[in-house]
């Protein structure tokens, strides 16, 4: 967001500048409308007397492998969204059909799945990939096959320009935006000397780099950067590397080792510990009142969408929570031990609505209309908050193919997460570093 990041004249002329963002924020606040070309996605359209074939959407799911927990909830959310979209008349009058293939949370298989969906199942679009290394492995194939690829990931890979014109991330914010949004609050409220603990691969490096940049901006200092290999199962030995002058431990961990991580942190420090600020990725799918997590009491978490219903009570979020079968505590309504990936899975719901809008606005009928569809999406400037976008309004950059949105900070207390701060969309915005619209189709 700082003006230092504006590297060229060309960039300073980009659509999304600080001023336009603030403007957009004002529009959201004032009228609840972002952009002029957005139609009401919920307007009921009748099927054209059964004459239209379904719109086929290939869902690249992490059913197995390290992403399986997220994958299960992505699948439930996707199916719930498809069911609802069909109940209100489908997409441009055509029913939606989801075709799911497991990629094993594996980049190589991810590329194969994209190809299989495109060439064998002949889907219209591919969607739903989460883990960043799988996105990195799969997106090039989507680009080669020239099929629109809508990911629901978090890494900075889409907006960085590393991917291609066919890849979009319209409905979930990236790590850079998340950090930019919450870091001001973190450095001003919790402390200036921060130790970063992050996974030793691309997703973790995004955290390391943008948290370091944010520290400079807000007068904070990163006193140590501790990278942990993703397969690690014991963490005590890393904690001795945390400097004594640390005010805040900023942690983001994913995978099954997370609970151990938190527990061992508690064992190591005892009651006199630095402040803890974590990314909820660490605890997606994990019950906050799990044994050994008492140590988190009083610590802080970033959430993209509050897990507990009382933290964000809007008509849209209530409708969505009900539709995906999640109770007020963020667990499955049929099994209270089955905790959801609530801060991520909304992206699947919202992305299907973004696809719906893209198809309906571009007049897409078949694969020959891909160019028009892509140009239509690139013309989007955002989405309204509502049933289609329950997490909140989004600002969308056609150049980076990436959206920006609001973020939440929650504090753990009484065995639950309590929202204590909500950022504006503008807090998370930064100057685009790429322009996919200049690539050929």
């Amino acid at each position, binding site marked *: 967001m700082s003006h230092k990041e504006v590297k060229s004249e060309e960039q300073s002329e980009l659509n999304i500048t600080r001023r336009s963002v603030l403007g957009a924020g004002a529009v959201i606040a004032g009228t609840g409308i972002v952009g002029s070309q957005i139609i009401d996605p919920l307007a009921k359209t009748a099927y054209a007397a059964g004459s239209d074939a379904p719109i086929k959407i290939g869902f690249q799911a992490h059913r*197995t*492998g*390290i992403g*399986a*927990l997220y*994958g*299960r909830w992505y699948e439930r959310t996707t199916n719930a969204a498809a069911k609802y979209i069909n109940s209100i008349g489908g997409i441009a009058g055509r029913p939606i059909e989801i075709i799911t293939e497991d990629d094993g949370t594996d980049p190589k298989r991810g590329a194969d799945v994209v190809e299989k969906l495109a060439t064998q199942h002949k889907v219209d679009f591919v969607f739903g990939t989460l883990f960043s290394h799988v996105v990195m492995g799969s997106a090039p194939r989507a680009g080669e096959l020239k099929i629109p690829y809508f990911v629901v990931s978090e890494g900075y890979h889409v907006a960085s320009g590393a991917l291609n014109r066919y890849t979009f991330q319209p409905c979930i914010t990236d790590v850079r935006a998340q950090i930019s949004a919450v870091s001001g609050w973190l450095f001003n409220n919790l402390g200036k000397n921060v130790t970063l603990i992050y996974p*030793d691969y691309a997703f973790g490096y995004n955290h390391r780099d943008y948290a370091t940049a944010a520290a400079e901006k807000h007068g904070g200092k990163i006193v140590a950067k501790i990278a*942990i*290999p993703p*397969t*690690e*199962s*014991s963490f*005590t*030995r*890393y*904690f*001795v590397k945390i400097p004594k002058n640390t005010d805040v431990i900023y942690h983001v961990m994913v995978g*099954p*080792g*997370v*609970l*151990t991580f938190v*527990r*061992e942190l*508690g*064992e*190591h*420090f*005892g009651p006199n510990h630095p402040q803890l600020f974590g990314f909820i990725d660490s605890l997606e*799918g*994990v019950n906050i009142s*799990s*044994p*050994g*997590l008492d140590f988190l009491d009083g610590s802080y978490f970033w959430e993209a969408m509050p897990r507990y219903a009382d933290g964000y009570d809007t008509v849209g979020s209530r409708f969505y929570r009900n539709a995906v079968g999640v109770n007020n505590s963020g667990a499955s309504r049929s099994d209270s031990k*089955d*905790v959801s990936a609530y801060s991520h899975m909304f992206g699947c719901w919202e992305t299907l609505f973004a696809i719906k809008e893209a198809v309906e606005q571009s007049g897409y009928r078949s694969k020959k209309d891909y160019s028009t569809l892509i140009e239509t999406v690139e013309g989007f400037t955002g989405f309204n908050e509502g049933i289609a976008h329950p997490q909140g309004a989004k600002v969308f950059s056609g150049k980076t193919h990436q959206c920006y949105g609001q973020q939440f900070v929650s504090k753990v207390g009484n065995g639950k997460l309590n929202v204590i701060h909500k950022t504006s969309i503008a807090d998370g915005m930064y100057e685009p570093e790429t322009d996919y619209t200049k690539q050929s189709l």
Partner: protein
Amino acid sequence: MISWFNENGPLLFLALLDGTVTAFVLALIALGLSLVFGVMRIVNIAHGEFFMLGAVFSWFAFDLTNDPLWGFLLALVVAPALVGSIAIFSDRFILRKVKYHPESTIVATIGVLYVIQSVTLMVFGPEARAVEAPLYFRIQFPWFGYSGYKLIVAGMSAFCLLGVWVFMKRSKLGLYMRATQQDFEIAKTYGVPTQKIYASVFALGGGLAALAGVLIVPIRQADHLMGLEPLLLSFIVVIIGGLGSIRGTIVAAFIIGISDGIISVFYEPTLAKMLATLFVAMVLVLKPSGLYGEEVV
């Protein structure tokens, strides 16, 4: 020297403490793999899954009893028994069918690995599930705190290792196992029921892995992919120690555990893993039978 200790003493202490706990648990997991190779001459790729099943059964026991202590005691009895039964079943209907042929058993146990992993994913689900420790307390040292339960785990592992040692040296079944290990044909000629011994060894190996799973799960949760890391570490330990040698397995577990602790604390954990792998390569080149292994004819 003294100033070095003042500064780094606590770190060294932590490294030794953490390394010792790692070593005991590692020895317990690797021992089953070592026994199976020693007696049956097969490489059990599914060994890590037996460990995982122990942890998963432990979660079910905890869920069923809803009490950490009773759940733990139940799991301590039931998990090794169940996993042992699965091992006997695998031996009877898979390994025996491929006549314990070395290459075939590797492929067959890879199959067993996938079957166990997928069934667990279907029944247990993809998430990591926490199991409460039967006894939980935190030990506060002057410089840092440490989990009391981890020390209990180390103690119980040591007790189990001792138990296996005594069993192998003192019991009739242990004698049969050692006889089969030394010479299958002669043991058979002398009336050792080698087929039953094979099944027992495979069950014992699986049971020990499951026991380790039960002990470790309150420290690190149960999930369906947790078998891979202990499998790799067990291979490292067993190759260094010498296949089939109990003493070798324990010594190698300590070499790996303590060096891992010290290198991780003073340098980088990744470096510790690299050095362990390098050490394995050197053992394979310089002393292929391992530190205490019998010479391969």
